[in-house]
C-alpha cells in the first residue's frame, strides 16, 4: 500500500524506522509490486481464451477471405470462355436425360410387375414391352442434335479456357523471372493476349443454328409423345401420364433457354455479391473437374443438418427421458451406477464410434432394412439363447417393411451416421438436462404434492416445465456437438456430395450425404495451399465456427431469459 502522506513530512528521528520493522521497500517490476505482478501474470493467462477465440477468427478469415476474389475470377473466366453459354444448352440436355431415366424406371417397374405378379419369364416380359422400348428409344433419340452441338461446343470452350490458363501461368512465370532479375528469360516467355471476342466467335455464331435445332427437338418430342404405347401394366399408366406432364414442363423451359442464349454476353461483369450468394446458396460442390469448379456450401450444409436431425430425434427422447428417470425415479444406487456409466459413454472416442459404424452398424442397419437380421454366428449354436435372442430379431424384421425409407442398399448413409451421433449427443443432453432438473427447488415439488398432485403430474406439469429452459439449452448444446462432430460423419455418412432427393419422402434419411466437417477433414490434406479450393475449405470452417457460436449464443440466451426465479 502506498498511500500519500496527508501531513507534511516532519523531521523523522532515525530510530522510527526500526520501531516499525514491517515497513520495507518492496521489490518492484515495471512499477508493480510483487503481488500486483503475480496478479497481472494470472490475468494475462485468463485472457488466453479471448485471445484464442480472436486468433481463430483471424486465421480463418486470413486464409479464407481470398476465396471470394478467386471465385469471382473463376466465375468471370467461366463466362468469358463461353462455358456458361454451353451450360445453358447442357442443362437442357441433362433435363432430357433425366426424363429418359424416368422412362427406364417405368420399364424396370413394369418388368418386376410382370415377372412378379403375373409370373412371366423375363424374356416374355421383355417381349411384351417391345412397343414401349421402341417408344423409349425414339424419345431418347430426340435430343441427339443438341447433344452433338453441346459436345462440339464443349471442346471449343475448354480450349479457350486452357489457352487462358496457360497464358496466366506464363504471366506468373515471367513475373517470377522479373522478380529474380532474369530479364532475358522473362522476355523469352511467350504470352499471347487472348481476344475473347474473336475466340468466342465460333461459339456465339451457332446461336441461330441452336435455335433452329431446339425448335426441331421440341417438335420431335411432341411428335413422339403424340403416339404413346399402351403399357402392358395398367397400374403404371399414371406414371406415363406424369411423364407427359413432366415433358410439358420441360418444353415450357425452351423459350427461356432461347432467351438466355440469345442475350448472353461474355463481357457482363460478375457482381461481388454473386460470389457470396454463390457460396452460401450454391447447390453444387464440385472440385477438380475439367469443366468448372463450383463451391456451394448448400449440399454440405443440408447433409450436416440431416445427420443432426436424425441424431437429435433419437438423442432428445433418450437423453431427456434418461435424465428424468435418473433424477426423479431412480434409487440412489441406480444413480450411482448409471450416471458415471453415461459419462463413460461420452469418453468413447468418436473415431472408434465411426469405425464401429463402418464395421458393424452399417451392415446391421442395412440387414434390418432388408429384413435379414440374424444372430452372430457364435450365438446361433446355443439352442436356448439363440431362441430367446432370436425373438426380438424376428420382431424387428417383421416391422422393417413398415418403416419409411426401408429397405435401402447403401451401407453408409445419414442414418448410420445419425445413430452414432445420437450416442455422442445423449451424454451431453443427459448431463445438462439432469443438472437443470436438479436445480428445480425442492419446494416446487413439495408444494405440488401438498396440493394432491400425483407423482406423474408433479413431474410433467411442475418439474419439467420449470427446468425447460435448461433442457432446451441442453438440446442446443447437443446440437452443437453433433454439428461439429467430424470423424463419425467422415467415416459413416457415405460422403456423396449432392443434395438428397427430397421428392422421395422419408427415404431421404437413408441416402448418403457429405457434411461440412467431413469435407474439411477429407479434402484439406489434398489441396494445394493457397488455391481456391483451399480457401473454400477455410470458408466452410468459418461457417462452422460461426454456426457453433450462434448455437452457443442461443443456448445461453434461453437459459438466461427463461430461468425461473428461485425464491
Amino acid at each position: 500500500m502506498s498511500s500519500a502522506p496527508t501531513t507534511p513530512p516532519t523531521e523523522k528521528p532515525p530510530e522510527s524506522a526500526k520501531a516499525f520493522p514491517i515497513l520495507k521497500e518492496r521489490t518492484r517490476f515495471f512499477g508493480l509490486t510483487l503481488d500486483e505482478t503475480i496478479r497481472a501474470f494470472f490475468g494475462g493467462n485468463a485472457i488466453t481464451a479471448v485471445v484464442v477465440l480472436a486468433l481463430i477468427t483471424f486465421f480463418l478469415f486470413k486464409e479464407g477471405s481470398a476465396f471470394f476474389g478467386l471465385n469471382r475470377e473463376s466465375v468471370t473466366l467461366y463466362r468469358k470462355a463461353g462455358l456458361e453459354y454451353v451450360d445453358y444448352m447442357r442443362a437442357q440436355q441433362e433435363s432430357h436425360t433425366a426424363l429418359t431415366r424416368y422412362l427406364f424406371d417405368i420399364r424396370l417397374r413394369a418388368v418386376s410387375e410382370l415377372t412378379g405378379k403375373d409370373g412371366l419369364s423375363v424374356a416374355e416380359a421383355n417381349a411384351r414391352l417391345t412397343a414401349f422400348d421402341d417408344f423409349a428409344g425414339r424419345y431418347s433419340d430426340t435430343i441427339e442434335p443438341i447433344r452433338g452441338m453441346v459436345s462440339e461446343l464443349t471442346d471449343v470452350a475448354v480450349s479457350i479456357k486452357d489457352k487462358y490458363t496457360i497464358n496466366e501461368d506464363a504471366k506468373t512465370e515471367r513475373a517470377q523471372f522479373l522478380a529474380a532479375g532474369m530479364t532475358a528469360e522473362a522476355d523469352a516467355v511467350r504470352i499471347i493476349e487472348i481476344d475473347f471476342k474473336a475466340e468466342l466467335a465460333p461459339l456465339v455464331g451457332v446461336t441461330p443454328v441452336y435455335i433452329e435445332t431446339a425448335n426441331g427437338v421440341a417438335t420431335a418430342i411432341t411428335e413422339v409423345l403424340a403416339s404413346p404405347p399402351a403399357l402392358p401394366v395398367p397400374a403404371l399408366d399414371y406414371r406415363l401420364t406424369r411423364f407427359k406432364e413432366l415433358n410439358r414442363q420441360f418444353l415450357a423451359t425452351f423459350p427461356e433457354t432461347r432467351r438466355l442464349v440469345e442475350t448472353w454476353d461474355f463481357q457482363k461483369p460478375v457482381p461481388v455479391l454473386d460470389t457470396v450468394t454463390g457460396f452460401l446458396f450454391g447447390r453444387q460442390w464440385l472440385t477438380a473437374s475439367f469443366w468448372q469448379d463450383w463451391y456451394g456450401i448448400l449440399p454440405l450444409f443440408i447433409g450436416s443438418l440431416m445427420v443432426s436431425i436424425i441424431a437429435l430425434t433419437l438423442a432428445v427422447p433418450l437423453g431427456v427421458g434418461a435424465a428424468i428417470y435418473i433424477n426423479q425415479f431412480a434409487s440412489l444406487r441406480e444413480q450411482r451406477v448409471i450416471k458415471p456409466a453415461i459419462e463413460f459413454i461420452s469418453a468413447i472416442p468418436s473415431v472408434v464410434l465411426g469405425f464401429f459404424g463402418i464395421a458393424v452398424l452399417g451392415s446391421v442397419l442395412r440387414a434390418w432394412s432388408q429384413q435379414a437380421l440374424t444372430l452372430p454366428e457364435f450365438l446361433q449354436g446355443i439352442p436356448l439363447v439363440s431362441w430367446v435372442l432370436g425373438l426380438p430379431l424376428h420382431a424387428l424384421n417383421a416391422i422393417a417393411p413398415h418403416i419409411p425409407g426401408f429397405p435401402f442398399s447403401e451401407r453408409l448413409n445419414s442414418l448410420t451416421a445419425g445413430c452414432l451421433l445420437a450416442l455422442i449427443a445423449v451424454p451431453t443432453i443427459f448431463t445438462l438436462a439432469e443438472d437443470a432438473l436438479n436445480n428445480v427447488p425442492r419446494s416446487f415439488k413439495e408444494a405440488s404434492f401438498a396440493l394432491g398432485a400425483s407423482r406423474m403430474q408433479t413431474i410433467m406439469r411442475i418439474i419439467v416445465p420449470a427446468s425447460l429452459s435448461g433442457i432446451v439449452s441442453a438440446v442446443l448444446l447437443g446440437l452443437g456437438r453433433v454439428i461439429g462432430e467430424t470423424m463419425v460423419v467422415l467415416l459413416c455418412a457415405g460422403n456423396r456430395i449432392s443434395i438428397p432427393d427430397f421428392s422421395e419422402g422419408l427415404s431421404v434419411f437413408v441416402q448418403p450425404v457429405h457434411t461440412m466437417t467431413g469435407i474439411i477433414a477429407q479434402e484439406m490434406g489434398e489441396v494445394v495451399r493457397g488455391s481456391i479450393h483451399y480457401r473454400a475449405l477455410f470458408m466452410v470452417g468459418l461457417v462452422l465456427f460461426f454456426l457453433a457460436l450462434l448455437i452457443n449464443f442461443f443456448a445461453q440466451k434461453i437459459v438466461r431469459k427463461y430461468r425461473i426465479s428461485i425464491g
Partner: protein
Amino acid sequence: MSEPSNPFATKPSTGRSLEKVVLGIFRAATYFVLLCGLAIFADIVLKGLPTVANAFKTTSTFPYVTNTFLFEAPESLYVFEHEGKKLEMGDREFRAFREAEEAKAAAAKQPAPKFKPESYVYSAGGIWPCIVGTVLLVVGSMSIALFLGVCSAIYLNEYAKDGPVVRFIRLAILNLAGVPSIVFGLFGFGMFVIFFGWNVSLMAGWFTLAFMVLPVVITASEESLKAVPKGFREGSLALGATKWQTIRKNVLPYALPGILTSSILGIARVAGETAPIMFTAAYVVRDKLPWDVEKSADFFFQGVMALPYHIYVVSSKIPQNEYTARVQYGTAFVFLGIVATIAMSSIIFRNKLRSRYKW
C-alpha cells in the same frame, strides 16, 4: 366380504397405470442408452482382444516376452498360396521367406518359385509408433493446457472481481468450449503449421490440442478452487500472509488433487480427438520413432503417428476383410482401452476425493 376393505389402499386407476407406463418408458430409454454403449464396447473388446492376446511372443533377451502388436511398427501384410497352403506374412518376414525359398530353389537347380501375394497395407506388425505418438501428444498438450488453465482459473476465482471484463472472459471460455474440433484443426493448420512455419509437428499439435481442452481445464480448476472453503483464505490473510502466499500455501495444495483428477477428463478428450491433429501433427506412416532425431530441437518439429488417426486410416483407406479386421479391431481395442482407463480413473479418483475432503 369377510374383511373390511382398507379405505386408504391405493386403488388401481388409469392415472396410476399410465404412470407405470411412462416410468417404464423412461427406464427403457435409460437402459437402452447403456445397452448401446455396452454393445459397442463388447464388440470392440471381443473382436480386438484376440489380436493383442495372440501377439505375445517369447524373446531371448531380458524381458523374455514381448507383444508384437503393441511393440512393433506397422507393416504391410502379404497373403499368398505356397505349396497348397495359404500363408500370411508381414513385410520383413515375407522378404526373408522369399529369399530363403529362392535360395532353396537355386540350390536344387529349380526355377525360382513365383509368389503372387495380395498385399494389405498396415495390416501386419503393430502399433507401437502410434502409441508413442499419442502419449507424446497427450503429455505435451496437457502440460500446456494445465499451466494456462490453472493460471486462468486462479485469476478468475481468486483475483478477479465480477465485472464486464471477467464476464467477457467467461463468455469466451464458454464459446471456446463449443467450437468444433475440426475448426481447431483448421486454426492450428493456419497459425502454427503455415504462419509460424512449424510444419506438421508435435509443437503444432500440442498447441492446437491445448487450446481445444483449455475450457475443460479452466472449468475443472475453477470448481476445485471454489471447493476450498473461504475460511482457509481468510485465516491465512488474517495472519498477515500476502495474497500470493495465501494462494500458494493454503489454496492450491487443497485444490490441486481436484484439479488434476477433473483434468483427466480433458486428457481423455485430447487422446480421443482426431480432427485437430489430422493436419497439424499426425503422419499416416513414419518409420522413425520420435526419439530418433539428429538434433534435439528436431524433436519438437517432427510429425508423429497417432492412434486415433491410425484408426481412421486403417478403417477408411484399406478394405474391410478378414485380413485387415485383425489390425482394425486391435487398434480400436487398444485405443478404447487407453481412453477408457483414463476416463475410469478420473471417475474413480473423483469419487474418492469427494469422500476424502469434507469441510
